[in-house]
């Protein structure tokens, strides 16, 4: 538009301006004169042409400026629920008072349609499709993403921070505590939904009586995945300069309404530890008490490195699980697991034992060849009726482990260990309800037999040293409990009886030792415990727990070798208490105290020597060990989600009084260790702190863990008593950053320094070691490709003036195509060959040099069916 026209318009405008009228006023209720807020005042001319509007304020006032030349104005005052007022007024400045009268709303309605809501009574249903992502393999991968559910690397599941109490597939408990087999292997795309049954009570008879406060998980399969085999197959081949490498995993299952079968076979020699698949996870039932080996074989050591860096293995795992549903409430089950783990290790070791004359230093290089054979079979029967519950499980757990080790020290020493364990157990859970009373009985009975043998051959002397040791035991544990709740308080009591018949025989055939080489001991025991407890939770942040164990412990020891009989009786009162207070949403404090007293078992009594390797022998003083401890802890937590700052710190103090002290004597290179009567005290202190902060501008998360611990104890070595102080601090920083949508990087560091101080008659002896490690991982996601690059640097101080550096680099490339995934892994690119580190154990120092797995390249393929 030409400028001239603009000019014309500007000049002409004032001429076009219409008369201006200001209407002011107030809208009030006709009945009582109270001002009305929100009324709409609408002004128009005779032709219904709108001229202006206003909404009345809180005090009922309004103000409208009208620009019009008309003589009369129409004012309409409306408000929902009131009769509309129509006024015709003169077009002049004026003040109005409008009175509105309430009136029923006569407007037409459009009804709101309610959406159907699907909820099952007490079950939360997660639709797997909603959480499933293209590259998810096992159901565990999907579970990780469901809000409220946590999955650990071994496959154990927590819901809202608490371990689940049952893991079902299609409502049936096929795997029990070994449910990790399913979380880690069951194909994600076979699952339709995951149901979380909160407050799950597995016992039907208790359903409307008591709740468990725990949740159960149920996996529902897609219709198309029922009544047919479903599974996946993964194969990988590759090599390193010395070996051909393989990995093969086959998982298959067949699920039907009345029968379930799950089969899996896994094998590899690339350092993946498949024994973790058989790990037992926490459920509502307690794990069976563990059984320890009698001999300490020279076995594969765990390093502070990931297993595929150092584990030389040939592993096979086979598992077969079958369940039959006999009737609606009865079922039977058979589970068989077999594991073979062939492991090898090459190490060089320097052991330094402190004595006042001169330290004893032993150089050894060893080659260990260990074979783990494990067969576990269980047969169960469950009758989950409305009025009673019966569960019986018969279990055999057989291990026949062998280990052969060659130690080059003073000549070539060959060790052959046979450390089998044969266990047969039966577990019975029975509950019956009648007239609102509930009777429960949990009984566990186990027979164990451990006939273990060690043979030591020396290449220079034609004599075989042989240690035979055999322990047999019968163990029973019966318990029952009662609880009550009133308002914010719970109280109740648990009654428990444990008993056992324990027998040990040992015999040593030794070239030099001919005396005191046999043991024959019978030890029977009975522990009765009544544990009343009280808990208070006011639901506003204060929680208190008080527990008292009243324990009577009886023991009868018959040493047939030395012809002595003893009877021990102990009565203990063991209180413990805890308090948690939540000050506000930022701060929370906890305090706890526990007193514990315990006595030893059969292994306190063998007074004759037992050989554990060519230079280590153990005996006992024949005195029952007694231990008394007090421990207290306090923690303080701070969380501020607005500033994303999290902080916590705490301290734990423990004092332990013992009647036996550890004693070590040397004869030449041979050592005899035992626990001898001498009252001593051990004090320990642990302090820790954590701080985490998310820095949004850098999309970076920073956290630091720091800890300090101090232990003061005493030990006897070569007839002399030494007070020992050991302390260590460590700092663990972590940084993880999201560079952009397609790139992630993570850094983790570890700094630790430990100090040892020994007070001897020659003065104080001090030593220290430093360990530092850094690891950096980088991920990139480009369409169907995933790239992962990792680097790790470790620095270990071996002695005060020697140290080592190790560098690891790995590269992984993956490509996904439909239901198959192809990958290439290149590990230990710099081909690091050894890893060295030093550890302290009071007066003794051990330095190790381990051989590592060399550089390797693998090609992988995974297919699901």
């Amino acid at each position, binding site marked *: 538009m030409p400028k001239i026209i603009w000019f014309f318009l500007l000049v002409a405008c004032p001429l076009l301006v219409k008369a201006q009228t200001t209407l002011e006023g107030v809208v009030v209720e006709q009945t009582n004169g109270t001002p009305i807020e*929100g009324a*709409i005042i*609408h002004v128009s001319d005779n032709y219904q042409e709108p001229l202006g*509007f206003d*909404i009345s304020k*809180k005090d009922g006032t309004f103000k409208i400026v009208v620009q019009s030349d008309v003589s009369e104005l129409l004012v309409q005052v*409306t*408000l*929902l629920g009131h009769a*509309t007022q129509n006024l015709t007024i003169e077009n002049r400045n004026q003040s109005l008072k409008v009175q509105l009268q309430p009136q029923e*709303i006569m*407007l*037409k309605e*459009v*009804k*709101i*349609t*309610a*959406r159907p*809501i699907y*909820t099952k*009574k*007490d*079950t939360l249903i997660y639709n797997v499709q909603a959480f499933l*992502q293209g590259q998810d393999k096992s159901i565990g*991968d999907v579970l*990780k*993403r469901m809000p409220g559910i946590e999955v650990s690397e071994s496959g154990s599941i927590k819901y809202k921070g608490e371990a689940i109490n049952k893991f079902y597939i299609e409502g049936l408990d096929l795997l029990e505590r070994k449910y990790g087999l399913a979380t880690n292997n069951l194909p994600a795309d076979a699952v339709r939904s995951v149901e979380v049954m*909160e*407050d799950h009570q597995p016992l039907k008879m208790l*359903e*409307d009586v*008591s*709740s468990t*406060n725990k949740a159960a998980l149920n996996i529902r399969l897609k219709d198309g995945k029922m009544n047919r085999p479903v599974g996946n197959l993964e194969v990988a081949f590759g090599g390193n300069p010395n070996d051909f490498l393989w990995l093969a995993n086959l998982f298959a299952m067949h699920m039907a309404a009345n029968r379930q079968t799950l089969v899996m076979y896994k094998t590899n020699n690339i350092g993946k530890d498949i024994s973790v698949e058989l790990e037992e996870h926490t459920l509502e039932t307690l794990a069976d008490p563990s059984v320890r080996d009698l001999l300490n074989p020279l076995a594969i050591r765990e390093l502070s490195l990931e297993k595929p860096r150092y584990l030389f293995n040939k592993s096979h795992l086979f598992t077969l699980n079958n369940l039959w549903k006999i009737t609606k409430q009865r079922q039977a089950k058979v589970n068989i697991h077999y594991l073979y783990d062939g492991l090898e290790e090459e190490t060089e070791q320097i052991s330094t034992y402190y004595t006042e004359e001169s330290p004893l230093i032993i150089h050894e290089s060893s080659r260990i060849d260990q074979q783990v054979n494990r067969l576990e079979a269980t047969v169960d029967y469950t009758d989950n009726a409305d009025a009673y519950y019966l569960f019986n499980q018969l279990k055999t757990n057989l291990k026949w482990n062998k280990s052969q080790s060659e130690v080059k020290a003073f000549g070539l020493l060959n060790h052959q260990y046979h450390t089998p364990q044969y266990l047969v157990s039966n577990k019975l859970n029975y509950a019956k309800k009648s007239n609102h009373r509930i009777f429960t009985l949990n009984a566990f009975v186990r027979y164990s037999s451990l006939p273990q043998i060690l043979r030591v051959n020396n290449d220079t002397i034609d004599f075989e040293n042989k240690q035979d040791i055999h322990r047999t035991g019968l163990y029973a544990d019966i318990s029952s409990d009662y609880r009550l*709740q*009133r308002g914010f308080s719970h109280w109740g009591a648990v009654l428990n009886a444990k008993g056992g018949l324990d027998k040990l025989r040992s015999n040593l055939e030794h070239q030099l030792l001919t005396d005191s080489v046999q043991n024959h001991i019978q030890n029977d025991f009975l522990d009765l415990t009544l544990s009343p407890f009280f808990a208070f939770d006011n639901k506003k942040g204060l929680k208190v727990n008080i527990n008292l164990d009243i324990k009577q412990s009886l023991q009868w020891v018959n040493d047939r070798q030395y012809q002595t009989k003893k009877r021990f009786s102990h009565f203990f009162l063991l209180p413990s208490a805890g308090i948690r207070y939540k000050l506000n*949403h930022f701060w929370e404090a906890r305090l706890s105290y526990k007193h514990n007293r315990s006595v030893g078992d059969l292994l306190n009594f063998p007074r004759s020597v037992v050989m554990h390797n060519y230079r280590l022998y153990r005996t006992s003083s024949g005195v029952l060990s007694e231990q008394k401890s007090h421990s207290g802890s306090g923690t303080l937590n701070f969380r501020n*989600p*607005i500033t*994303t*700052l999290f902080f*916590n710190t705490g301290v734990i103090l423990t004092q332990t009084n013992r009647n036996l002290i550890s004693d070590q004597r040397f004869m030449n290179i041979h050592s005899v260790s035992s626990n001898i009567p001498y009252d001593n005290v051990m004090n320990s202190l642990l302090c820790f702190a*954590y701080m*985490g*902060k*998310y820095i*949004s501008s850098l*999309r*970076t*998360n*920073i*956290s630091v863990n720091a800890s300090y611990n101090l232990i003061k104890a005493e030990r006897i070595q070569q007839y002399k008593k030494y007070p020992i102080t050991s302390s260590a601090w460590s700092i*663990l920083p*972590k940084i*993880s950053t*999201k560079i952009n*949508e397609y790139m*992630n990087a993570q850094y983790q560091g570890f700094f630790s320094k430990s100090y040892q101080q020994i007070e001897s008659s020659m003065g104080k002896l001090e030593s220290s070691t430093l360990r530092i490690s850094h690891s950096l991982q980088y991920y990139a*996601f480009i369409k169907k490709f995933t790239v992962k690059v990792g680097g790790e640097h470790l620095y270990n101080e071996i002695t005060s003036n020697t140290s080592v550096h190790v560098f690891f680099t790995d590269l992984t490339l993956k490509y996904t195509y439909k239901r198959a995934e192809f990958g290439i892994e290149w590990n230990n690119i710099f081909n690091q060959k050894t890893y060295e580190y030093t550890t302290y154990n009071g007066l003794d120092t051990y330095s190790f040099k381990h051989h590592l797995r060399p550089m390797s390249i693998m090609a992988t393929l995974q297919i699901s069916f």
Partner: protein
Amino acid sequence: MKVHSLFLLLFAVSVAIHAQQIAGGDPNAKLRLDPKEKLDVVKAICLYEQTVIHIQEEDGYTKQDQHRMILQAGNNVSRYVDEKSLLFESMHDSMVNANTNATEAMNILIPLKKGYNREENYKNYPEGSITTRMFLKSTYIYEEAIPAIQWTVATGEKEIIGYICKKATCRLFGRDYEVWYSPEIPLSNGPWKFAGLPGLILEAKDQTGKVSFSCIALEFPKAVVDLYIPKSTKSAFKTKKATFRKMEEDYLKNPLGSIKSSAAGSTIKVDPEMERRASRERKKTFIELELE
């Protein structure tokens, strides 16, 4: 599909719960009444379908969030809240009256809220302000002044759910909206933070088409219905809008970031691939609604 009044439904649900009288369980663990503050009495209930589309800048990944939001308009104060939240609250109350066992009740209640819009607004509470309540791991509350919307009344008429509507336009929080209001409904209110026209706003659409609110139902309750705000002030963080929005943006862009820093034991291992997917799956309604 059968058409019910929302109130009939709520009534029916509460009757069903009374009738059920869930037996057994721990008799002492009862559901407790959530404290509430009565702000007003509901005069009109309007149901809006709120749609927000967000498109990932990097790769064009598109995600659409749709919620059914209810505007409860009172004499002075109004509440804009997800239908699911209202249903949850009223069922919760009727369960309290029915003395339902707490855990049992939560098992029914929690799934009701699945996928609900975590933001709700209270217009003119306190006077002259909008209070926003938002659940993001915890409840946050912030206040802001009612935006002084500069309305431009435009020509144009159309019918929405049987009401003649007039057109107006405005700019609000960085988006240009075309709005349809009905002078036939004398309520100067509208969905979300919209208000100030001589009639109820029944539709609002932004020019990019990414954000829209459209009315699908309207009711005028015959019985007295209270308009209230849940008074969870004890467990809610009071904050400022700017602080909250920054935190929200951080959380939505990198949801696991802040979780990781809260994991004191630092045992949580997060697969970066999972993390990336989790973050793009997040609902970004709140961010998308207000650009400035």
